[in-house]
């Protein structure tokens, strides 16, 4: 791996770490605006994290080691995910370590651990949240996998960097499959990031909560890490979406200028994406928990159909 590769890799990680809370803040701000609330500041998430880190963390008296490990593991998984998703550049030394399938596996790993941690304390809410999270997961994972496969059918590869390069370099052809997979991806990423209409990120004490129900027992630095991980997950998903559907502007190997240029491009794209997400969250209502499987099954089917369309139209 080249020196430049190392640089871009480190930059990707740094961007993920720093930009993620900003992204969350941005989305929250927009949503508040669209709902005619007075919006929190853009940097609010940083303040929250800082405050949580300062606070001491209160553990349930019989919480096991697993419970304490989980935040770090989840944080680690998400960081790695952000590191292998081509955000700024496709010249990532880490990316051969994990391709699309491994990326999905990575998310699954994090999910499993957080659900286990939720069950660890043994509260009603925790186990309920864990079950729902797994329910969402077992439908969202294959759907995401299918979406990625759809792209990799085109690029004849499951390695993310290759996918992005081929997609970025192809002459501007219309892939009807991308219409289907795009919709599917949006649905999946809403579900994965615990957003309306599947889950509501900023409510407690709702019988329908999922993500919040799982992290109820966390506090202090553990909570901070989980929140940070969540925002990194959001960032990772947005970057995947951008990489799949708007792969332009991502730097190639040994192109330092492009690398410098890539950052602002990314920020712009993310900003737009965030606004869109806020729009969706505003315009759609949270659905009953029993509807969620149908919602996700639809996403899964859309992705599969997309795959079929790919094959039918003889792509790749």
């Amino acid at each position, binding site marked *: 791996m080249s020196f430049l590769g190392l640089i871009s890799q480190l930059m990707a990680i740094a961007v993920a770490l720093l930009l993620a809370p900003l992204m969350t803040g941005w989305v929250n701000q927009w949503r508040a605006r669209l709902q005619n609330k007075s919006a929190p500041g853009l940097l609010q998430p940083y303040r929250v994290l800082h405050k949580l880190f300062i606070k001491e963390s209160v553990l349930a008296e019989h919480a096991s080691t*697993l419970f304490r490990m989980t935040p770090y593991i989840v944080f680690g998984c998400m*960081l790695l995910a952000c590191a292998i998703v081509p955000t700024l550049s496709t010249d990532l030394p880490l990316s051969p370590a994990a391709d699309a399938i491994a990326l999905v596996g990575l998310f699954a790993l994090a999910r499993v651990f957080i659900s286990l941690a939720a069950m660890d304390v043994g509260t009603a809410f925790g186990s309920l949240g864990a079950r729902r999270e*797994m329910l969402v997961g077992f439908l969202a994972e294959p759907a995401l996998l299918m979406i990625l496969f759809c792209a990799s059918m085109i690029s004849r590869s499951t390695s993310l960097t290759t996918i992005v390069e081929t997609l970025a370099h192809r002459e501007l052809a219309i892939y009807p499959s991308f219409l289907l997979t795009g919709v599917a991806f949006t649905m999946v990423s809403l579900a994965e990031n615990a957003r309306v209409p599947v889950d509501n990120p900023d409510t407690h004490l709702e019988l329908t909560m999922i993500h919040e129900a799982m992290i109820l027992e966390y506090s202090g630095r553990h909570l901070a890490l989980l929140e940070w991980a969540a925002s990194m997950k959001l960032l990772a998903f947005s970057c995947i979406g951008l990489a799949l559907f708007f792969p332009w502007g991502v730097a190639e190997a040994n192109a330092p200028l492009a690398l410098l240029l890539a950052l602002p491009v990314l920020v712009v794209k993310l900003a737009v994406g965030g606004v869109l997400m806020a729009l969706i969250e505003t315009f759609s209502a949270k659905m009953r928990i029993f509807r969620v499987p149908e919602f996700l099954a639809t996403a899964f089917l859309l992705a599969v159909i997309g795959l079929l369309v790919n094959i039918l139209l003889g792509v790749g």
Partner: protein
Amino acid sequence: MNGVPNPVAWVHLDGALMVVLAWVLIGVAGVVALKRLRFIAIVLFPMSGFFSLLLLALGISAVISGPEVAILPLGLPQLPFHLRLDSLSALFLILIGGVSAGVSAFAAGYFRKGEGTPPGLICLEYHVFLASIVMLVLADDAYAFMVAWETMAFSSFFLVMANHRIPEIRNAGYLYMLVAHIGALGILLCFGVLQANTGDYTFANMRAQQLSPFWASVAFVLAVFGFGAKAGLLPLHAWLPEAHPAAPSPFSALMSGVMLKIALYGVLRVSFDLLQTRIWWWGVLLMAVGLATALFGVVFSTVQVEMKRLLAYSSIENVGLMAAGFGLSLLFSAYGMRALSALALTAALYHMLSHAFFKSLLFCSTGAVMHATGERSLGKLGGLIRTMPWVAWPTLVGALACAGLPPLGGFVAEWLLLQSFLFTTGLPSSFLNMLVPVLAALIALISALSGYTMVKYFGVIFLGQPREEKLAQAHDAGTWERIGMLWLVAGCVLLGLMPNQVIGLLDPVTQRLVGSGLAQSLAGNGWLLVPMSVERASYAPVIFLLGVLASFGLAYLLVRRLYHGRTRRAPPWDCGYPWQTMRMQDTAEGFGQPIRQIFEPMFRMRRELPTPFDAQPRYKVTFEDPLWYWLYLPIAALVERISKVIGLLQQGRIAVYLMYSFVTLIVVLLVVKQ
């Protein structure tokens, strides 16, 4: 294939036979010391574990070295036992040795008083079982194969019946034995086809035969039927969820970890080695059956409320996945696409190895839990991670591997499998081209569901608060049990972290079976697992793990450095809800409920909903395997009816009997008159 073996290294085969002999002797020793539990536990089982290690070593070195043959002066006079140790058998020796080493060590600590059958007898059956499996893998003629096969069946049958006081266990044993025997008959007929009227039952001769497509297909279908019955493929799976829970846990581990694989070994042996022709629809058939089995198994395992049944159904699922892999490989090789065929085969074999390790690990852990708590129903467990950490943490590893999560063994297999299902474009038939990638979606769904199952399994048993008071003083696993489980854990982790080395072992097998392998594409990639080319797909578990661990560590250190590590213990908050009781946790049934709703058509369900005016309302739901009602019971009823009719022949009237003789005489005379 079956060229002249090099006389230099015949040591492997002899070594394997020595291990067999040793096991038999250990078994006999067990019978001699029939009731002396301590002796059997502390001396015999560890000894056999040692021999397992020997077998493992032999297998590893035999994979690379060429085939070895030998002839034992046993069996039928025209047909002594032919033995042959080729790469395929060697691979299975590795599997048997590796798993049984751990399980035997675990068993040394496991067996207590009051297992029904005296420990010495169990020891005998256990070791006869192991020995017969090794013989089976080494067998090179139909007779030796069948003898070993049926010996395996009936030693395992007695082990399943070990606790025969309980009627359910007797029924389970009966069902198991019956299905096994029906399958064996199928295999017998399959060999009957393969020997093609030459009266020569050696595999060498069978390889030499050129069967017509019709007979070849008959043989293949019979093989899938016969071996599938043992492997638990649909629709002959019914015995599996009954027999696995019935057996003592170490043996359930062996059944699920080794025996099911041995059945698949039979499929491999017949369809990839003995049959020279390959027809594309064989692959499709195998894939269809496999995936159907896998989906069925995983859906049923999510809704189980009993530890071992849950694991048993999950075994069905994994076997289905392996069968699907074999089917795909068969399909490719029928079209002469060697590289892809090798990829699919490697994936299936890899899954086989890792499943052997993590599933036997999980079964061992259930055994430990049952010993500690006396409970086998998930609804009465919970919170054991605090009282028995030595069981909980290994189980966690096993569960993660079973859920197919990186960086463990299960994921590598799943990854390879998905790769092979993904890159099928270029099959001559466009229909298949479309079909296969969609099947990849099914596989993704299945593995995600197995993740669901594993979270339920581990979470309900080990996490949360104990659902019964007595769980508080559950004792942890003993020394031997720990050793056994740790060995299996090591297996799972190594399979996860060193795929290239393992595939290096698998390469000779795929070379032999489909004439290609992954080794050359792996060469020079160091830690990077690259089935085809780096651009196409790559995966490096070690880097992956290091990445996660590094960020884990960094986060930990930084948080501690920049801020502090203060923690305070307090009662759980739970949204400030004051009256927390253990009953408020989600139950196993509750965990299965969403899946039950989504896949409702797959179950045969009966619900009792309470009316609003019930004094003490109760909600009861029972669900069963529909195949039981669509297949097994009708067959039984049919046999019953026929035998009733035939029974009418014999009503005790001597005049009628004389009439039979008379009519028979007349008929025979008429026949010969022509």
